[in-house]
C-alpha cells in the first residue's frame, strides 16, 4: 500500500499526492489521504444541544468522544439520508478526531501537479478558501479540500475559536 505523501514516478523528479475521494450528493471530493484515520458506518449519534444542524452529534469511538459533521447539510448538497450504507470518514485534523458523514467513499487516487487546476473564484456568500484546487481524473472533476482549513474555520463551529 502506498502511504507516502510524495511518490516519485519514473523520472524521479515530479511529486504526486494521494487523495481519498468521496461523494457528497452529486459532487466528487478529495481529501489528503494522510488525514484519514478510518472509515466506519453511521450509527448511535448522540445529539448535541443547540449545535448547528450540520453537526449531527457525538459518537463513542472506542472510548473517545468524536463529533460528527454532515457536509451534505453544510454544503446543501442533496437530501441527507442515513441508512446502513451511510459512511463516516474519521479524520485526524489539527490533533483532533472528527467524523464526516459522506454519501460514499469511492477510491484513493494519486494526482500529479499538472492534474490539478486552480479553483475558480466563486464570489459566493460562502468562504471557499478551503478548496485547494480542482483535480481531473478520467474526465471526472475532483474538488480538493484542505480539510484542516475547512474544519478550523469559524463557520464550522467545530473548534473553540481563539477569540
Amino acid at each position, binding site marked *: 500500500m502506498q502511504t507516502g505523501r510524495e511518490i516519485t514516478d519514473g523520472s524521479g523528479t515530479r511529486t504526486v499526492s494521494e487523495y481519498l475521494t468521496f461523494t457528497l450528493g452529486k459532487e466528487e471530493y478529495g481529501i489528503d489521504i494522510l488525514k484519514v484515520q478510518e472509515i466506519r458506518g453511521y450509527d448511535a449519534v448522540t445529539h448535541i444541544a443547540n449545535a448547528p444542524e450540520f453537526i449531527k452529534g457525538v459518537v463513542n469511538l472506542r*472510548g473517545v468522544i468524536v463529533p460528527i459533521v454532515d457536509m451534505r447539510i453544510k454544503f446543501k448538497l442533496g437530501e441527507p439520508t442515513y441508512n446502513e450504507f451511510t459512511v463516516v470518514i474519521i479524520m485526524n485534523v489539527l490533533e483532533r478526531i472528527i467524523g464526516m458523514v459522506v454519501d460514499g467513499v469511492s477510491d484513493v487516487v494519486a494526482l500529479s501537479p499538472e492534474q490539478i487546476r486552480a479553483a475558480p473564484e466563486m464570489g459566493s456568500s460562502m468562504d471557499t478558501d478551503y478548496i485547494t484546487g480542482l483535480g481531473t481524473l478520467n474526465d471526472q472533476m475532483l474538488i480538493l479540500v484542505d480539510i484542516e482549513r475547512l474544519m478550523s474555520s469559524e463557520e464550522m463551529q467545530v473548534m473553540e475559536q481563539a477569540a
Partner: protein
Amino acid sequence: MNHQDPTMLGINTARFNLMFFEECGEHLAEMERILVSLDNGEPNDEQLDAIFRAAHSIKGGAGMFGFQDMILVTHILESLLDKMRNNEITFSPSMIDLFLEAGDVISMQLSGHRDGSEVRQEAVDLICSKLQLVIEGGGAAVASESACLPAEVLHGNIVTDCSAPSADTTVHRYELTFAPDPDIFKRGVRLENLLADLEELGMLTVHAQVNVPSDFSTFDPEECITSWRLCLETSASVADIRDIFIFVADADQLQVLDVTDGTSATGQTAEYEETAPFGFQTEEDSLAPAPSADHPGIVTTGRRAYDKNETTPAAYGRRAGDAESSIRVGVTKVDQLINQVGELVITQLMLAQTAAELDPVLYEHLHRSLLQLERNTRDLQQSVMSMRLVPISIVFSRFPRLVRELAAKLGKQVELKTIGDTTELDKGLIEKITDPLTHLVRNCMDHGLETPEARIAAGKKSGGTITLRASQLGGRIVIDVIDDGAGLNRDKILRKAAERGIPASDSMSDEDVWHLIFSPGFSTADAVTDISGRGVGMDVVLRNVQSINGKVDISSEPGKGTRITISLPLTLAILDGLSVAVGKEKFIIPLNSIIESLQPTVENLKTVNGENVVNIRGDYLPIIPLYELFNMDSLVKEPEKGVLILVDADGEKAAVLVDALLDEHQVVIKSMETNYRKVDGTAGATILGDGRVALILDVNSLLQMRKQNIAYS
C-alpha cells in the same frame, strides 16, 4: 562531577532533566521537612547529615546537568553544613531560617530551569553572601545585612577546598586504600569516573590488587574482587578526597593516610591508625579497624558514613541494591490505563446486557463466566483507580512551615496538628485543594486564633491549636480545618454584610450567616494585613472547591473555635449521576446537585409572567424544561406529566423537567473539548452501558442559560 557535558552526549537530555527536577524537588521538600521539624532546636547528627545529603545530592545533580547557578548556592550551603557537622560552626536557631531561605532560592532556581520562570538574581546573591558570612564568621550571629560576595563565588569559580578549615596550599601526599563492596559494579558505580575525579586533584598513581578467587566454578564475574592502593599528591584536604568517595565507599572501605614527610603537617586532616598493610587482603573487615569515638586521631573517620540499610534517595549509586518500593510513571500513562479499563467496563456491561436476554438455564455457563468477568473488571478498575491516589500528607506537609512563619509574623503561638495524613485522594484533587487549604489555614491564624494575651484573658491556654484532619466518609473525602480560636462573630458578620450590600437579615440561621463569609468582597478583618483581610479569599476558596465537585461547610461556636469542612469526591474521573430521558436522548445529572425528584400535581404548578413555577413545601421554584433549553423533541411538554428534579446550584434552587428517571450510575467523565468544543449546559460526556454517548449536565450552567434565554425573549 561536571566532566560530562550533556550536550556533548548528543542525546535528548530533557527526560533526564525532568527526573532531576523531580528528585531535586523531593530533596528540597525533605530538607524543609527536617528544618521545620527542628522547631528552633538543635539538629542531631542524623538530621544534619540528612540535610547535608539533600544539599549534596542537589549539587551533584545540578552539576551533572550543568546548572551552574544551582551549584553555586548549594555549594556554599553544603560548605556551611559541613562545617557544622565538623563542629567548626555552632548551631544557632537563626540558621534554620537561613537554610529555609536558601532552600527557597534553590527552589526558585529550579523552577527557573524547569518552567522558565523568573529567577531573582539579587535574592540569589543575597543568600550566597549571607551563607558566606556565616561560614567566615565561624558561626557568629547570622548577619542580616547583605555583604559583598567574594569574587570567586560570584563568578562560579568555586574553590575546591573552601570546606577546609584554612586554605592550605602545601602539597600533601596521601596514600589511599580502597576496598569496595563486592557488589559495587551492580550498583552502577563507574570507577573510571571516580579515578578521573581524583586525578583532577593532583598527581595520581594507582595500583590495583586482584583477589584471585580460589574456586572458579563459584566465581561471579560481576563481582568486584579488586582493591586499590592509590597515591595522590595534592593540595586538597582529606575531606575533599572523601567527598569524591561519598556515594561509593563506606567509611570502613576507604582509608586516607597523610604520608607527607611521614607525618602530618596540620595534624588535623590526617588520620593515624595502625598502618594497615597495603598488601593483599583476604578479609575485608581486617582492612579497617572499627572507628572508635575515643580515638583522637580518627575524628574524621566515618564522618560521612551512613547506615548500610539506609534507603535515602540521596544515596544514588547504592539504589539498585535496595528493594525498590515504587516506580515513577507519567500521569498520562496512568490516565491512558484508566481510560482503557473504563472501556473494558463498558464492554463488560454491553456483554451483560446482551446475555441478560438469554435463557438463564440454557446458558448457565455463560452467565457464570460473565459474573466472574464482572467481578474481575471491577477489581481491575479499583486497582487502576487507586494508582492515581496519593496521600494527603503531600499537602499537609506544607503547613508546618507556613504556620511557623505566620505565627512568628503575627506574634501568636500556634500548634499545628494533622490527623489522617495517610488518607488518599486523587492526584488531580491534591493539586486543586492545596490553595484553598492554604488560604483557610492563613485565615484561621489571622482571624480565628487570638493573641496569647487575649487567649489568657478568655481563660484559654496561650497557644492556639489548628487541626487539619482528613478522613474518608463513604465515597467522599472530608477535610476539616479546625481552630480553637474566638469563633465567628454573628453580629459582626451581619454588620459587615450590610455595609457591603450583601443581602442578609437578622433572622437568618447561624449556618446561613456563616456562609455569608463566602460572598465576594467580604472581610471581617478590622485591618487589612498582608496575610489576609482583603476580602478576596473565601469566595475563591468556595469556587475552587466547587470546581472539583466539593462542598464547604462551616460550624462555629463563639469562644470555642471554628471548623471548616471541605468534602470532596474521591476522584475527578468518576461521578455519581442519575440518568434521565428527554425524548430519545439520555442525560446524566450529577447526584451531588440533586436535592430530590418528584412528580408534581396540577395544584402545585403555577405560572409567573407565563413562566412555570412549582410550589414545593411553600417555596416557589422555577421550572426549567430541558427540551426547551436544548431545542429538542420531547415526549413530555407539560410538567405534570413528566418528572421534576430539584437541583441546587450554589444555593439557587430550580426544578428541571425531564421525561423520565432511568437509573443511577457511576460514570467516567470524558471531556468534550478534546475533539469538539464546550457545550453550554454540560460538564462533559460519558459513555453508557450500551456504548452510546450521554452528556453530563452542569446545573449551574443550565440556570445561567435559562436566565439568558429569558433575557433575550
